[in-house]
């Protein structure tokens, strides 16, 4: 009996317990809305009762509702990517609970306005870039030359007879090219009169390219117009052996990556000789010494413990060429130009995270360039002619040996704070030592000039909200050669208008030491100076990019040479450039088809060097544009690229004009259609890339300017002239690149099967 009652009680209690448990689970409704601090509906936000399973997601109207069996005091949590998670206390009783969440946006890189919207960046890692690394190599007409691809972007002028970056009415000297933080003095192969030279470095060395057509960061200086910054690859993905063959060159390279992927080394050798090519494609000038170049480079890279990277890169090139054109000063004579060049570039860079948001970048570089130039007036048998006593002819012959050493060191420290705010500061020193020996019939003129340059800089990226960011910066420079100092403030302000659109305003003062060759035995001069004002609007999504920029560049001080002899220089030169630029890129509308269009309007005048008036300079065209098309068939690994470059005529100097009509003549407009084809087949075990390129497909006539005689006149009494044309109207490129990669994924498959 006793037992039974107990049992009964136990059963009753069990039932009571069940009921109690059930009662505890009586449901209460929780509902509400989720919005952001601008009142926009947030769909897909996670709503959860803390420490329980209960919750839901907000729907497309930003509303949510769910039932819970929890009781008493609880925390309701709302979270959404890109927003700060919010917790609100709720009391769960018997009545339904209504809660409205207002989530604050987190300042984060994916959403924030882009401070550097004024520049063009090619990178695969960062968001909001206009170009990808591969674009540089696959633009028709560029033949994998970095600067030639840059010339298809707004603001960069194509100048057919001279290498260099001519940006927004600036001369080639006004642009600096930087590799891993250090300046490259001789980025292009040495100048040959009338023939534009390629850049020395392959685009495949770099993972990031930033081209700023003005208003660039305080981290860089000594460029009145523009900075092109190239960042080399870190540790490559895999080891490989590469071989390249073409009628123009042969190349072999090896890159070895350690098994733990923490270090790698590599070297390559390239021999370029245009003998075969020039037989196949006749050249207008007489190349009596066929261009012949040997290039060797090596790299070593390793990763340090805390995700730091240490890199060494060394490049050496030696080359010779000789080219001969008919003399304009005497019928039957030739002007011969020959060049021997040696170039060395080395760069050491190291970046390391120091913890707590600190990062340090150290870079050092030694570079050397030697040009041996000989010009000669030759007779029909290509023998040097003796003294003719016609001074313009006798003075044409000279020899020049020029040596340039440059040493650089640079430290930049980064500190991140808040969400994505950054301050950067640092210092750099350069030592430039130039020496040359110029010999002509007037005698031997040795000279040397040395400049010790030092600079300190600081800059901050301040994100006030995701929509508004401000970048103030300042740079202080000193040059021992000028014995002068300058302070250059810079600023950028960016405001986001919508999900993909924004405006940026850039301002800055930019100083540059005048070219050292003008400063030998001269009275003291000051830095050259240009002030930039730029306004950018851009709309960028993964499929489309639209950018329009308006700029005004005030050349406050340029170098001016006097017209009397001996020549003296001063800072009296001045000028301006203003214009509007458009860029449109569309990757979406047509499948596997990508194109971009750029247009630049440029109004610029300057009075500098030996100019006799404020005029449009020879390297500036008023209107220019490019259309670049790319189509790739993934299935066949086959790509076709087309580009069209066009610009209005540029001014040229005509000595037949009187001095008040200085540079009023214009060349014919420039127009070129270029085609290239890439095919990536598998040949045996090698991954191959076959490239065929044709520049100026339609043989359009291109005149870059004119050379005038100093003494021979035609029947009208005008000095005679010859056109400056490309060496061949239509040019070709054919190359096969093979790489044997030790493919680790393949290894893994084989090991595991």
């Amino acid at each position: 009996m006793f037992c039974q009652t107990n049992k009964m009680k136990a059963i009753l209690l069990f039932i009571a317990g069940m009921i109690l448990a059930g009662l505890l689970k009586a449901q209460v409704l929780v509902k509400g809305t989720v919005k952001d601090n601008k009142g926009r509906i947030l769909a897909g936000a996670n709503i959860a009762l803390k420490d329980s399973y209960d919750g839901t997601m907000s729907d497309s109207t930003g509303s949510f509702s769910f039932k819970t069996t929890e009781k008493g005091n609880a925390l309701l949590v709302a979270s959404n990517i890109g927003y700060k998670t919010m917790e609100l206390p709720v009391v769960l009783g018997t009545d339904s609970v209504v809660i409205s969440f207002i989530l604050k946006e987190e300042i984060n890189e994916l959403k924030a306005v882009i401070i550097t919207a004024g520049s063009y960046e090619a990178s695969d890692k960062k968001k909001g870039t206009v170009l990808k690394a591969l674009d540089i190599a696959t633009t028709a007409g560029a033949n994998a030359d970095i600067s030639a691809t840059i010339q298809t972007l707004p603001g960069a002028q194509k100048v057919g007879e001279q290498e260099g970056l001519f940006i927004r009415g600036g001369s080639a000297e006004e642009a600096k090219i930087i590799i891993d933080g250090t300046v490259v003095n001789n980025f292009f192969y040495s100048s040959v009169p009338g023939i534009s030279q390629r850049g020395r470095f392959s685009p495949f060395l770099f993972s990031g390219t930033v081209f700023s057509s003005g208003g660039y960061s305080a981290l860089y200086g000594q460029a009145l117009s523009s900075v092109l910054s190239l960042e080399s690859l870190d540790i490559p993905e895999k080891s490989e052996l590469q071989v390249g063959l073409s009628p123009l060159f042969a190349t072999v390279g090896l890159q070895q990556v350690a098994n733990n992927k923490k270090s790698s080394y590599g070297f390559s050798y390239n021999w370029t000789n245009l003998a075969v090519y020039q037989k196949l494609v006749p050249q207008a000038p007489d190349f009596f010494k066929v261009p012949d170049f040997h290039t060797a480079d090596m790299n070593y890279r390793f990763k340090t413990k805390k995700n730091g990277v240490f890199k060494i890169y060394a490049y050496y090139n030696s080359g010779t060429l000789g080219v001969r054109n008919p003399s304009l000063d005497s019928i039957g004579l030739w002007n011969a130009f020959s060049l021997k060049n040696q170039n060395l570039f080395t760069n050491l860079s190291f970046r390391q995270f120091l913890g707590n948001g600190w990062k340090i970048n150290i870079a050092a570089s030694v570079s050397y360039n030697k040009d041996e130039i000989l010009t000669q007036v030759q007779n029909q048998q290509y023998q040097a002619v003796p003294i003719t006593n016609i001074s313009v002819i006798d003075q044409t012959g000279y020899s020049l040996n020029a040596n340039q050493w440059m040493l650089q060191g640079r430290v930049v420290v980064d500190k991140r704070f808040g969400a994505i705010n950054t301050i950067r500061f640092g210092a750099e020193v350069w030592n430039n030592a130039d020496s040359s020996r110029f010999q002509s019939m007037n005698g031997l003129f040795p000279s040397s000039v040395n400049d010790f340059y030092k600079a300190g800089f600081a800059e901050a990226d301040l994100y006030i909200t995701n929509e508004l960011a401000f970048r103030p910066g300042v740079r202080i420079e000193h040059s021992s050669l000028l014995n002068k100092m300058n302070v250059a403030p810079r600023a950028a302000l960016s405001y986001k208008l919508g999900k993909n659109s924004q405006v940026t305003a850039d301002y800055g003062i930019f100083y540059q030491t005048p070219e050292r060759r003008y400063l030998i035995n001269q009275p003291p001069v000051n830095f050259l100076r240009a002030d930039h004002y730029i306004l950018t609007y851009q709309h960028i999504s993964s499929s489309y990019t639209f950018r329009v920029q308006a700029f005004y560049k005030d050349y406050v001080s340029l170098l001016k040479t006097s017209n009397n002899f001996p020549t003296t220089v001063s800072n009296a030169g001045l000028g301006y450039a203003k214009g509007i630029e458009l860029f449109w890129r569309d990757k979406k509308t047509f499948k596997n088809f990508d194109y971009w269009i750029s247009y630049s309007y440029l109004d610029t005048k300057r009075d500098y060097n030996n100019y006799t008036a404020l005029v449009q300079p020879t390297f500036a065209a008023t209107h220019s544009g490019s259309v670049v098309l790319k189509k790739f068939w993934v299935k066949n690994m086959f790509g076709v690229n087309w580009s069209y470059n066009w610009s209005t005529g540029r001014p040229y100097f005509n000595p037949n004009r009187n001095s008040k009509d200085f540079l009023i003549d214009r060349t014919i407009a420039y127009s070129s259609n270029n085609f290239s084809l890439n095919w990536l087949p598998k040949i045996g075990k090698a991954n191959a890339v076959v490239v065929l390129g044709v520049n100026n497909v339609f043989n359009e006539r291109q005149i870059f300017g004119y050379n005038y005689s100093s003494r021979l006149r035609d029947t009208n009494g005008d000095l005679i002239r010859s056109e400056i044309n490309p060496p061949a109207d239509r040019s070709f490129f054919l190359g096969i690149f093979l790489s044997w990669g030790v493919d680790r994924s393949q290894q893994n498959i084989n090991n595991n099967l």
Partner: protein
Amino acid sequence: MKKILMAFALFATLGLNAQSKYESAMQNGLSKMKESKTPDEMSAVASFFERVGDAEKNQWLPYYYAARNYTIAAFMNPASDKDKVAEKVNELITKAEAIENNNAEIFCLKQQVAVMQLVVDPMSRWQSYGAIAAEAIAKAKVIDPNNPRPYLLEGQYLMNVPEAFGGGKAVAKKLFEKSVELFENFKPASVLHPSWGKEQAAQLLAACQ
């Protein structure tokens, strides 16, 4: 005695209830997952698993399923912002790894996220994200050589990679064969542990024939 018995009875009823709560929630989630057809439904299931994970704090499987469902939802919806989803999924993976270190299934998730991001812009991303994906699969295979899913996922990825880049049906076929073979003997650690992929492997193998 009476009191003890009563207390025990009360405790047992409540306790039994509590003990099964996690498992029944997971079972419930898994069956909802099977029923889900649209990206929204998949996301809802994912958010459910995420809540379970956040509440439990020491279970990695809820985070695993949350990450998996968010990823599948993103794959199903062409308009989804895959980089944004990847950010979310990687957060969940980090949470899962904090509880369960060195698990082949989690490395499989990593591969799926990398492939999802690769698809956004294959031309320029295949080198970087392709490498991350390959590395994740290699790790998964080392940790659990008898797991059929790394082979299935790798095959699925390589099937869509052009032959010139080391992909193609022939390469994928070998991997599917291996996966099917491993599925024969594969037993999940519990009913809640990942067990998906057997039919998929067989179907894909057939597609490669």
